[in-house]
C-alpha cells in the first residue's frame, strides 16, 4: 500500500515540540518525536521497511516495537485524513 501525505500539511519542530499544521483546515496537530519522524519519512516517500530500520537505529529499540508504533500512527493519520492510502496494483 502506498501512503501519500495530504498536500498542504507542513511539519515542524521547536526544541522538544513537534507539530503538523494542516493548511486546509487550519488545525495544528501536536506530535511526539516518533510521530514527527514517521511523518517526515512519509513526506519523503520512504517505504515502511526503510522507516522501521531508521526508527530502530535512532531510538535503539526493536523492530516489533517500532513496527506497532508505525502502524498505529498511520491508522491515526488516516483517521484524521492527513494521509491518503493508495492500494497498489498487482
Amino acid at each position: 500500500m502506498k501512503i501519500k501525505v495530504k498536500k498542504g500539511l507542513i511539519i515542524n519542530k521547536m526544541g522538544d515540540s513537534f507539530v503538523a499544521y494542516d493548511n486546509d483546515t487550519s488545525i495544528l496537530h501536536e506530535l511526539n518525536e516518533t510521530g514527527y519522524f514517521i511523518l517526515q519519512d512519509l513526506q519523503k516517500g520512504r517505504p515502511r521497511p526503510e522507516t522501521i530500520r531508521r526508527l530502530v537505529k535512532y531510538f535503539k529499540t526493536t523492530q516489533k516495537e517500532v513496527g506497532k508504533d508505525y502502524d498505529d500512527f498511520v491508522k491515526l493519520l488516516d483517521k484524521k485524513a492527513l494521509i491518503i492510502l493508495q492500494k497498489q496494483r498487482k
Partner: protein
Amino acid sequence: MPGSTTETYYLNSCGFTIALSFAPSETAFYREKFIAFIREVWGKEGFITRKAKKADFQIIFRSSLERIIAKEKRTKHFFLYAERDFPGRRMVVPYSIGFSVFDLILREVHAFLLERDGFLLHAASVLDKKGILSIFLAPTGGGKSTIAGLLAKRGYFYFSDDVLVVRKAGGKWVFYSPPFIEKNWLPKPKMATKAKIFLIIKAKKQSREIIKDKNSLIKKLIKQLWLANRNVPQGSLNNLMSFIGGNNFYYLKATLNSSKMKEVVDEN
C-alpha cells in the same frame, strides 16, 4: 519627452530591495500621479533610491487594458489587480489600481520575501528611549492598538499599529517598523533588535506573567501571521517556531490606566 521611457525606483525596505518600474503610458495622468505618490510616501523618509541595484523583487506598472484580468463567477465579474509571478519574483500591475491596493501589494511581496528568514506579524508595538520594543499581540479588537496608544502618550515611540516585520539576521531577531501605510501614519524606517513580547488579556488589574508553555503559543501566533493567502508557507512556519523558541513571551493583563500599564511593561 517625459514619460516616454521606463522609470525605475528602488524601494529599500527591511533589508530588501524592490524595484518599481513605471513603463511608458499614453494615460500619463495616472502614471505621473503614481510616481508622485511613491515619492511622497516613501521618498521623503529615505526608502527610495534611483541608483540601479540588484532587486529582490520587481513590480512593473503598465497601462495596457488587456493587463486587467477579468474573472467570471456566475453573475459576478472580478477584476484582478495584479498579474503575479512569485517564482519569477515579479508582478505586473495596471496604473489604474488605487493607492491602497498598491499598499496591499507591497504587503504581499514582503510576506513572500520573508518566507526565507522572517514573517509579517499582526502586532502593535512601541519603542522606548532605550531602544527596547514592546510588542503587543491579540486577536482583532483585543486591545493591541489601545495599549500601544496609551504608552505612546507616555513617551514611547509608536513603532507599528497593525503589522510588524520580523526577520532573523546574523542569528538575531530584528524588528522593522512596517513600510506600509497604517491608519494615518506614513512609513518611517525604524529598526529594533531587543524586544519584549506580550499577549494581551483585558483585565481589571494590570500585571504580567511569563508564558512557560510555548506549545500553546504556536496555535495563537499562527493566527497572528499576515499571509498573502490563507495558506501558511513552510518557511513562515519554520521561522515562526524558531522565533517562539528563541524569545520570552508574557501574558499582559491590561487596563486603560496608562501610568500603571507603563510600570508593568517597563518591569525588568
